[in-house]
């Protein structure tokens, strides 16, 4: 409504393109492409397959998996601040069980169950009790990490377990486990949202909850499920992180991951108001932000400055979101 850009009355064909919408949709991909080109030219060994797969992508994959869950929650018009803490909690619970000699076949599923339970808790608060998602998930955002600390007694202990080592260092089909997982999860999510009614229901609930209720969609159930899936994915990432560190670490596991995930969804051009969902663009958002950080740091820019750059990009994305036509 307050579009005050100065444009002439006669708009040329080029100007007729809805730039804000274009940038909103493909901006992250364009920046990613620019970063890749920059790195190919200026960063040594960037194109090396090992670097791409085992450094860049492996770093980004856990955040990307969490971001997919976040995108589901945001599609319903919600937000989940607790995923970073859930990553910590699931990893620590699993670590403690393993250290206590519980067989991995039991301990690892428990980690995922912890995530699912956390999601169920969040989803119930939001949909049954009508608590604002930001507030509801703040509960586990604080309590989750605290609980993780209690569970481990605040100590960092090495976990020597072949399966944990495999999660961190293993290779499937030539890919690190985390990258392989991301691919499988992405395919699963795209498949489910495209071929089953779940995708349409999700977008209907996020786009117009009252309308969704009137066509017989169980809106509370759909919302709850979004949080459960997000929690489950965070639980799984907890295991991946445990594999990466090979030790229990309640303080740093999954730290700030919720913020990275939200940032990725935002730069992907998803309205935080709900009603849209784009897994592909979400992953591109994660890769772009990750590579931006790595590039800046690799070229001697202090991490703090790199973080400011990331902040600016997020602000730009949100600004474009507000301006673009189909976000309204």
């Amino acid at each position, binding site marked *: *409504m*307050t*579009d*005050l*850009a*100065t*444009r002439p*009355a*006669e*708009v040329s064909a080029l100007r*007729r393109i809805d730039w804000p919408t274009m940038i909103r949709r493909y901006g992250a991909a364009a920046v990613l492409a620019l970063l890749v080109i920059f790195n190919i030219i200026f960063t040594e060994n960037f194109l090396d397959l090992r670097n791409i797969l085992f450094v860049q992508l492996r770093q980004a994959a856990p955040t990307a998996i969490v971001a997919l869950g976040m995108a589901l929650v945001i599609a319903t018009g919600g937000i989940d601040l607790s995923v970073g803490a859930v990553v910590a909690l699931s990893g620590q619970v699993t670590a403690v069980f393993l250290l206590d000699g519980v067989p991995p076949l039991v301990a690892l599923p428990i980690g995922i169950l912890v995530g699912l339970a956390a999601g169920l808790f969040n989803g119930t608060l939001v949909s049954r009790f009508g608590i604002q998602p930001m507030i509801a998930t703040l509960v586990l955002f604080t309590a989750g990490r605290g609980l993780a600390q209690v569970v481990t007694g605040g100590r960092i202990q090495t976990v020597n377990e072949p399966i944990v080592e495999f999660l961190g260092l293993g290779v499937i089909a030539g890919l690190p486990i985390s990258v392989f997982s991301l691919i499988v999860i992405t395919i699963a999510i795209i498949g489910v949202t495209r*071929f*089953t*009614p779940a995708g*349409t*229901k999700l*977008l*209907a609930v996020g*786009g*117009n909850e*009252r*309308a*969704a*209720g*009137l*066509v*017989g*969609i*169980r809106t509370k159930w759909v919302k709850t499920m979004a949080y459960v899936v997000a929690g489950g994915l965070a639980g799984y990432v907890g295991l991946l992180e445990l594999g990466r560190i090979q030790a229990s670490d309640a303080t740093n596991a999954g730290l700030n991951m919720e913020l990275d995930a939200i940032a990725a969804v935002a730069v992907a051009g998803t309205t935080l108001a709900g*009603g*849209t969902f784009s897994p592909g663009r979400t992953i591109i958002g994660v890769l772009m932000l990750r590579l931006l950080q790595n590039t800046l740091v690799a070229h001697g820019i202090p991490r703090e400055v790199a973080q400011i750059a990331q902040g600016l990009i997020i602000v730009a994305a949100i600004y474009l979101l507000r301006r673009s036509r*189909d976000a309204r």
Partner: protein
Amino acid sequence: MTDPKTEGPLLQMRGVTKSFRGARALDDATMTVGRSQIRALIGQNGAGKSTLIKILTGVYRRDGGEVLLDGRPVDFRSTAEAQAGGVVTIYQEVNLVPKLSVAENIFLGRFPKRRGLVDWATMRAGARDALAKLSLDIDVTRPLGSYRVATQQMTAIARAVSLEARLLVLDEPTSSLAEREVETLFGVMRSLRDSGVSMVFVSHRMDELYEICEDVTVLRDGRTVAEEPLASLNQYELVSKMLGRAAEQVASGARAAARPRQQAEPVLAVSGAASAPRLKDASLAVYAGQVQGVAGLLGSGRSELLRSIFGADPLDGGTVVVSSDAAPIRTPREAIAARLAFLSEDRRAEGIVPHLSVRDNLTLALLPKLTRRGIVDRKRQKQIVTDYIARLGIKAQADQPIVELSGGNQQKVLLARWLATEPAVLLLDEPTRGIDVSAKAEILTLVDKLAADGMGVLLVSSELEEVVSACDDVTVLRDGVSVARVDVERLSEESLMAVMASGEAVPSADSAPNKDKSDD
């Protein structure tokens, strides 16, 4: 600033063109508005009326053509700029903020201040004044969204009127209003005109145009095909111009006789239905093969009756029995399972899912039936969508987001959404809202045909003409109580009006008249 007696028209739009992603919405559209004039802007659904208006007020950028206000070229870039230039618009889709109070909405963007702080008392008083001009007395501190569509529409009008425009544009302001409110609005419009304000008025109700407008601009497929004094065209000629072909007989007369009941048992029987705060004691029966009407004034509980039948509002008392289903209906989900369908009157808040495609919106209620072993049958979905787009003449692509459709076409998609479920009982709340005259006749014919094929229909409409022409039998609600039944032999606009206002009728319903207080 401007002398109202300046020569020449107030507004001229010439050769305006506009495309959306290659699709032409406007192609050489022209409109001239004189001083102190009320001009009708008409055209079929999707003809480009709203687009032309949005170009005038800077919501969209035109691709070509010119706009002259007071003989000077203008190029508003936002609604706010247009307002500053004296052009105030009531958009087709009320674009106020449901969560803010009525008063805040009326003063949105121009809160009265005192010592830097919002002066709430002045604001509330101002809001009450603005609404009083429209004979509306409501609690202005309640959120706008808690009121029904008609009241929200009146709030939008009150806001616009209080903005002191030179040119007031009203895009289908009456589509959700009942006769009485329309009259109030027309009174306000006449006094504005007499004080020098010009207006553009969009409506699909022909009699309204003849009542309030002097001149008419007719758009067809984005092109202006006529700009004439309204008096020089009769209704038949006007509709023919709009359609680009000879119109069939426009007015459809009342049905001569009731259709015979196909069964002795009703498909839907409501007795003593109550739902706080408005619905108190409503009883009626719908038979297969019949169109049962519900009439009543604004606030009489018509929509609430439909909502509580469908499980959208809780039923506090009374019973709803659907023949196919013995269990009581508590949620829309159960209602759909009992083969009920309900078209809400509030297209924006309860109908469309804006970013979803026409295809997904149209099949939203059908989704479970389209799913085989967990997989949506996209092929069948596509067939159904193509079929309904053709049957209802929806001007849209299946994969277009529904927000991009014109108001009338959105309405058709929502109607199709429910028809596609092939219900046993169809509950329609203002089904032809925003739909053009020719499509309206087609839709009413379709409803008639569906009833003839054995569906039971319960129809609520503020347009008495529609009730009279479509229904076999009408239940009149007054203050939440069903006070009378008017059958087809006695059905006329006059008889209905009399019963609605007085609550007294040929006593055939079992409830006694109730004439204490009136709300809303």
